[in-house]
């Protein structure tokens, strides 16, 4: 099981605390999160299935947002952090 941590903004759409999810890829992990918390749908990913520009996903502390993205495999992964990035002004 992978422990998912969401930042405080995202908790208004999703789980109020850390959530355990079993998945073999980031895409499937997000599918499962969205199944449990439908209001998360399209907040993290757009209609094409890609992460939104200012959503950052860290797998065991490594940022995969700008590299392998949702296709990242989660074999052996223990934790995922989903945060919104620095932007705005």
């Amino acid at each position, binding site marked *: 099981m992978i422990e998912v941590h969401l930042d405080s*903004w995202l908790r208004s*759409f999703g789980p109020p605390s850390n959530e355990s999810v079993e998945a073999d890829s980031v*895409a*499937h992990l*997000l*599918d499962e999160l*969205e*199944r449990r918390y*439908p*209001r998360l*749908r*399209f*907040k*993290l990913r*757009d*209609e*094409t*299935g*890609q992460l*939104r520009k*200012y*959503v950052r996903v860290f797998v065991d502390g490594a940022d995969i947002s700008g590299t392998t993205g949702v296709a990242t495999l989660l074999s052996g992964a223990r934790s995922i952090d989903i945060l*919104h*990035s620095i*932007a*705005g002004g």
Partner: protein
Amino acid sequence: MAKDSKLRVLVGTRKGTYIVEGDARRKQWKVGPRAHAGSDVYHVVADPRHPGDVYAAVNNTFWGPAIQRSRDWGKTWKEIATPLTPNAKARKAQVAAATESLPKWAINNLWHIEPGHPSESKTLYLGADPHLLFRTTDLGESWEGIESINHHPDKPKWSPGAGGACLHTILLDPRDARRLYVGMSAVGTFRSEDGGATWTPTNKGVETPFLPEKFPETGQCVHDVVADAADPDTFYRQDHGGMYVSHDRMDTWVRIGKPLGDDFGFTVGSPSATPGKAYFVRLDGEARVTGEGHFQVHEWTDKTRKWRKLLSPKAFVGHYGVQREGLATDHMDPPGIYVGTTTGQLFISPDAGKTWKLIPFDFPGIHSVEVANSPRA
């Protein structure tokens, strides 16, 4: 919700929605409910068929676009269904598996929400980027794409404007619910006589100074269009290429802005109490702010074909930007004129431009201004 006597100015800003409440005399104003803090709100509009209903096109930097609705004049809001790109199902309809066929591109921003014809009490239209038009017939429970626009055969040739590939203008003929008009940047205007099944480009006479061809059929960067309240065949248009009027359902356009010199701008309004008049905010075409060094609104009288400046140069000194949804008029007599600026000023004239007041509140940069609940709304 019952109608009340308040006049409301609905303001969409770079950092949320604001409702400014005024009395029926348009003397006292109070900045009231605020919502969607931090989001770019491109348009806020009331549905005159359902008093109390207000819709907002909310574009959040992080979480993407969403349509929000209030049923109590902006006190509380709820996200309703938001359409997806063509071929995808309505956002709120169901949670589909990841294996569903996904579109190749996403909606970038929601631009304009237009309540439907009075005879179609549950219809709304929505314009979005990239060049998308949607319709709901159940007040936003679900949406259908207008495929004749969304999959238009010329779409691969359509270009965006600086603000994106936005479908920002949606107009309905009050005499015929099947006659629609849309405006897109940088594509131009189109008319449908059959409820959106087919469309005809309507840009004849509108110059494109940014293209090699001076008067192409499409490719115009239309910024805003309004209909004359007394004559639904007459339209006033602020284009990248100047200010225009049409008296034949947009079949042909005549440039009216040349006497002003630089007739660039983004917004235009035409109040119902004074048909034949249109109000433009002329901007410097390069700087995109009021080039005269002060706030100014130009009044066009169609019958006499005359322009009139409404403000003294001493009134509000500065350089102000005004976006395409930045000017609104109410339905009272004399009409009120409301202008929001990109630097957060909200100017109000309760008497067709004779006197002006600056609301004593600095808003975030203003994208849109609309008026709700005036006596004839």
